[in-house]
């Protein structure tokens, strides 16, 4: 398998490896986009100490509001793409792949010629985002020579990570990866149906059945046609493939619009930095990879640890949800036939993504990184120290959300004791986070045992 062999997938095992890469890419892109969006200055308080008039700040806030809308829309759709890849994995009889290497990921780890970095929003970050989402027909016009992560160009010459689980595949763009995947389902190199669809059709999660909101469209994959349509959807929404000119709602065009607006701002108001001074590739775990920056501020360390623990539990719940899902359970109340599955869905999606990952990620970006990094803020590291496990029993999830609830409460109490240093806004955000985690912890066993309350 490889470029010299026409990027052909020759067996179900090779397809499984390619799907694991696709899952890691979608997951990794999502984290990078979220990180950049969290770093945007979006309120007047984010401009504290910036000696510019209020009208100029309000102008930048209007821009960053629009950019955040675009970037978070793309990030949400990367989660949709990850769900599509998981459906392809499930059709193949493979478990959902929700592990990924920690940031930064050196060039060459994936065949894609780019690093994976957690960087605040700036010109180089947007260049990298445009490369990730670039349609192949623009490769010559929009060349990208990855400068490495961060201002110091860290990792430019770092050796790639060796991820044995999916070595050997060759591709130069995300679009090419999906075209290679499509070749396994249809065309001269297609694999036999008996190899492609070994999994249960009832395990196919579909957006119409689970009430994903906000136009999230995850189709079931039960035959070759479904698989090709799902893959086409990913490249249509990402690179805009299938429309001429490229679809205006594609990720590529959305990032191009943000980039145009960013360049215009820096040209007209060069002193107005639209992003907080968030450090590149922040980390707190002891096994952080080379090129990451160890955060030392005690509030940031606590918040980042809480973030990482919640992120891990969210992924474990997602994996459990996908592994445990069996069939369309009919109309309201959703999941009437499977309370545990509804519990995992209702904890992982709305609360964890919208009420934990985002607000806590945004809070971390507003905390200092520590005395070793003067003038820099911390950021959410999305650090994983172990692979999210498959479906567990209630006790496993309950233990972890109880621990998270306790950690959230301790973080709030600690921050309240240090309000003079970190300010009342941070304390209020921590208090709200603590309340959210507490209520999520109370909800879990009830949802698991009884399902959705139908008022």
């Amino acid at each position: 398998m490889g470029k010299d062999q026409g990027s052909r997938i020759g067996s179900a095992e090779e397809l499984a490896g390619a799907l694991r890469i696709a899952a890691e890419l979608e997951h990794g892109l999502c984290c990078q986009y979220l990180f950049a969006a969290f770093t945007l200055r979006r309120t007047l308080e984010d401009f504290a100490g910036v000696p510019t008039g209020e009208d100029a700040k309000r102008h930048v806030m209007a821009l960053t509001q629009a950019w955040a809308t675009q970037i978070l829309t793309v990030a949400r759709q990367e989660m949709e793409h990850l769900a599509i890849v998981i459906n392809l994995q499930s059709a193949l009889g493979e478990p959902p792949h929700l592990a990924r290497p920690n940031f930064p990921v050196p060039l060459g780890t994936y065949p894609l010629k780019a690093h994976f970095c957690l960087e605040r929003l700036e010109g180089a970050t947007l260049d990298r985002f445009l490369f990730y989402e670039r349609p192949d027909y623009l490769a010559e016009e929009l060349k990208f020579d990855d400068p490495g992560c961060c201002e110091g160009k860290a990792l430019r010459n770092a050796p790639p990570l060796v991820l044995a689980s999916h070595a050997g595949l060759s591709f130069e763009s995300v679009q090419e990866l999906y075209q290679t995947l499509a070749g396994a389902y249809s065309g001269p190199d297609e694999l036999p149906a008996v190899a492609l669809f070994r999994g249960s059709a009832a395990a196919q999660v579909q957006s119409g059945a689970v009430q994903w909101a906000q136009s999230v469209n995850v189709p079931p994959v039960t035959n070759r046609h479904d698989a090709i349509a799902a893959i086409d959807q990913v490249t249509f929404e990402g690179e805009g493939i299938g429309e001429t000119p490229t679809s205006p709602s594609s990720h590529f065009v959305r990032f191009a619009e943000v980039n145009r607006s960013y360049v215009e701002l820096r040209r007209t108001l060069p002193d107005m930095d639209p992003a907080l001074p968030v450090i590149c590739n922040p980390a707190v775990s002891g096994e952080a990879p080379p090129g990451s920056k160890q955060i030392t501020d005690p509030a940031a360390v606590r918040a980042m640890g809480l973030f990482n623990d919640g992120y891990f539990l969210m992924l474990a719940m997602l994996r459990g949800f996908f592994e445990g899902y069996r069939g369309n359970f009919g109309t309201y109340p959703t999941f009437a036939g499977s309370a545990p599955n509804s519990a995992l869905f209702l904890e992982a999606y709305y609360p964890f993504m919208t009420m934990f990952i985002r607000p806590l990620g945004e809070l971390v970006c507003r905390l200092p990184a520590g005395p070793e990094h003067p003038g820099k803020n911390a950021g959410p590291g999305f650090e994983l120290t172990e692979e999210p496990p498959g479906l567990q029993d209630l006790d496993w999830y309950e233990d972890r959300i109880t621990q998270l609830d306790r950690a959230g409460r301790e973080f709030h109490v600690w921050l309240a004791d240090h309000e003079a240093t970190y300010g009342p806004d941070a304390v209020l955000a921590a208090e709200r986070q603590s309340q959210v985690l507490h209520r999520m912890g109370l909800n879990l066993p009830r949802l698991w045992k009884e399902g959705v309350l139908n008022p």
Partner: protein
Amino acid sequence: MSAIETPRLVVQFGGRFQCRIPTDPDPTWEPRGVSGYTRAIGRETDFDRVICLQKSDIPHFDRNYRRAERVSPANEVSVTVKAARVEGATGTVDILEGAEVRLLRNPEYILWNQIVADGVERLVPLVVPFEIEIRKQVAGGEIVLRRYDPLVPGEIGDRFWEVGEPRLYAQRLPSDYVHLSSEVMESTGISDFEGYFQRRKEWLELEITRTPDPVEREALEVRLQAIDLFSQSPLPTSPGLIVNRLGLQCVWEHPVRGEACIEGCDLLGGEVLAGGPDDPGLYWQTRFWHGGWDGDLLRGYMQGELRMPFRP
């Protein structure tokens, strides 16, 4: 005194309110709106999420009260008493007409992105805290009818994040939810939803050309873009989100059981009664709906009634 024996003073109210709120999938405390269809714009303060029933109660009114075309019925914010009567008696209690209705203690819609009520498909928010007040200055004094309802009587009170069992406050959850309500259309006078926002867009386009202030102009442009974006239908069979919400109706119906403040009964011609949480016979009862939501102006319509034990 039993509920059956006691006559009821029934006060009916209606009018528009304002609530500057982020919308799903933005987090509850998103300051200015990013992923939902509502935005804080220009010189407006960050979202406060408070349900304001009177214009004069809107914080930073000069910044936060959005303008619209003159003919728009949504320009006025004021929920007032439309009629009052004593159930079982003839005649009306005209003195209360025009009284201002308020929800006190800075109430918010509490859903917390599906954490608090398991509203997978439906919007089922609580209104917390809940304290309703009817107040009117009249010749000879002031009439005040005010009562608070704790979400869960006792120690928990309004701390809903400490409740693992939503059945404890099930009566405070909406009792009905209608996507396209005839009652709402009759009350708001708006039935041509597309036309309603078309007029708004035309007005915004005109205002953008008239406004010399660049911050204000940019804010108007954001409003216009949001209407355009969220008027688009996700499905051919349903209208876009912002249009769809004009027909929304969310109904609450529950007792009001906590501490009360009653003044000016002599002006009413009878005594309004209230007991404590342990005296169901003297609970007040309310049924009201919020709906007809204009996601551009961040205003909706409220209509309902408050029923109180009354001794003529």
